[in-house]
């Protein structure tokens, strides 16, 4: 177990800068998730932590050791790859013990360790098989077993679940979380799946174009995104960005949206809107904050009911997503399935803006911070 500090790390290939000064630091035992679209530099950052790629500038510290220029084997970290990268010529047991063998661990200890890991991951019956004889999920477990066997200071997971089918992915996700709770080791985990990021992480670093857009706990990222990109990336369905005009009302400021009829909604931090009076901004509102009228919320401070024109309904079982359009923006509302919303008709919706955020339309930054 060790903390990880990434201090102003830059990586250049010729003229192109892949990492533009990354600063992340996490405590020992924390589960850090690097998330972002493909090409955002998250895998490069991961490889730099592992020592598989050199950084052009900056420092990487594991615990108190500066490992920026240490070779991969001296960093005492283990990695699980997206392609699993199991050694095809070795059995499962040999795969798991290879790292120990390289570190000159005596044979008996190696065998004991293989047994311990196999039991933890329930792969005891597979130990004599070759990787080619395993299913995707089994390979995934073996790949984790190989990482676990060495008991390293830190684990790196590079999109470990992206080659599994949907059901197995959810299962393994839970298992990884349990494993982390049990072992309490530091984990850095790369994914482009925001649900994985939300469910697993102690802290999430949302990356784009080689920069960390925001580093925070899943809830912080969900409730308090710093810009449009982070807000749109985390959450499924994504946050609604509703064009709204800032209006002055009774000495305070509020937002006017074009629902079925123009509707004025209050905003939690009205003073932050002052500079934008008369201009259009983007109101960020999660789908679950636009619902069918709920009696217990009636009359509360940030709740407004307004009619919308239903475009499409998407029943999901637990909820029904109701799609409408406010100006040019598509807006998702999360409703009770019993609520009789029908495509083509207008129906009342309750807008709860108590957790709403506002973004500058031009540069995408938050304006209410």
């Amino acid at each position: 177990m060790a903390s990880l500090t990434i201090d102003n790390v830059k990586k250049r290939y010729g003229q192109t800068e892949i990492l533009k000064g990354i600063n992340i630091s996490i405590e020992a035992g924390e589960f850090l998730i690097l998330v972002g679209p493909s090409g955002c530099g998250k895998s490069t950052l991961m490889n730099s932590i592992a020592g598989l790629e050199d950084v052009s500038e900056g420092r990487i510290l594991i615990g108190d050791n500066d490992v920026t220029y240490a070779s991969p084997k001296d960093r005492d970290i283990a990695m699980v790859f997206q392609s699993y990268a199991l050694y095809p010529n070795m059995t499962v047991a040999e795969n798991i013990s290879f790292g120990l063998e390289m570190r000159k661990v005596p044979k008996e200890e190696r065998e004991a360790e293989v047994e311990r890991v196999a039991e933890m991951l329930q792969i005891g019956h597979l130990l004599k098989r070759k990787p080619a004889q395993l299913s995707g999920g089994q390979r995934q477990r073996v790949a984790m077993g190989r990482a676990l066997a060495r008991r390293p200071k830190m684990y790196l997971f590079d999109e470990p679940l992206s080659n599994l089918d949907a059901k197995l992915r959810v299962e393994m996700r839970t298992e990884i979380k349990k494993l982390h709770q049990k072992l309490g080791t530091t984990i850095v985990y790369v994914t482009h799946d925001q649900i994985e990021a939300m469910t697993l992480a102690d802290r999430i670093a949302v990356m784009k174009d080689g920069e960390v857009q925001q580093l925070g706990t899943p809830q912080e990222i969900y409730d308090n995104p710093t810009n449009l990109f982070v807000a749109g990336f985390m959450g499924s369905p994504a946050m609604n960005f509703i064009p709204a005009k800032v209006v002055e009302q009774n000495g305070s400021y509020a937002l006017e949206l074009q629902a079925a009829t123009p509707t004025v909604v209050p905003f939690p931090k009205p003073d932050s809107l002052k500079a934008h009076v008369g201009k259009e901004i983007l109101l960020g509102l999660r789908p679950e904050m636009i619902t069918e009228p709920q009696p217990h919320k009636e009359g509360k401070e940030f709740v407004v009911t307004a009619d919308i024109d239903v475009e499409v309904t998407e029943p999901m079982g637990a909820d029904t997503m109701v799609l409408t359009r406010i100006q040019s923006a598509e807006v998702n509302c999360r409703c009770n399935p019993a609520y009789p919303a029908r495509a083509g008709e207008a129906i009342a919706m309750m807008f709860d803006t108590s957790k709403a955020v506002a973004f500058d339309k031009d540069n995408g930054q938050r304006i209410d911070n």
Partner: protein
Amino acid sequence: MSNVAKRQTSTLDKVLRIALYVCLFGMAAVYLAPFLVMLLTSLKDVEEIRSGTLLSLPSSLNFDAWSKAWSGACTGSQCEGMAPYFFNSFQIVIPAVAISTLLGALNGYVISHWKFKGSDVFFAALLVGCFIPFQVILLPMARTLGWLGIANTTTGLVMVHVVYGVAFTTLFFRNFYQSIPVELVKAARLDGAGFFTIFYRIILPVSTPIIVVTVIWQFTQIWNDFLFGVAFSGFDTQPVTVALNNLVNTSFGGKEYNVDMAAAIIAALPTLVVYILAGKYFVRGLTAGAVKG
């Protein structure tokens, strides 16, 4: 009633199919004919060769020509047959194949998994080696061998073949190793394995198909080589191809075609055997690097 589509075989289709087979068998016969003539001739005695036709069968099986070709025929002033040169060839081929294959494997491993600054240029330069004609390097190589003190020796010939073969073997191994995922090497590095350990424990065990291809290729090339053999061998280190040439060109009185043919088949036998034993790997391995799968 029945809407099952029947395969329509017209008369034209049948005729074309028959024509195709006739064509294929004809071509096969054309390719096999020389070998058949050699085999038949080697089993006849000189008298029968003179009186009969090329394709007439021998009246009795007569292996005298084979034993003479193996151990009694004259190659120039010596009359020991092909046997000593046959073993000379093995002494050249085995180390040359082993060394060039191993070097090719190491080179391919470095070029595809331990890229260094300029490794692509290095690989391109190496490829040029595949296209250098033999004749061009004869004189410089003769000087080099003389300077190294290994002119006219088996060692010298082995070195020539290794130098010439490395370009090809590297190309083979590099293409094969391109299809091995880089994560495998990364995982091994994190596990604490070094350059040679990864090569020996991870890479080599999965290289069987390409090793077979390279061995067949190098074996055939080096065994069949005549030019380097005639240019760089000494009196008693001549390979079998040179001996065959000498044998055919040495004649006292009438030409013994049966002995010539037997000697030629003996000289060709090892490459035939190698190809028959490992041929299926050859085709499999040659295409392995071409299509990622």
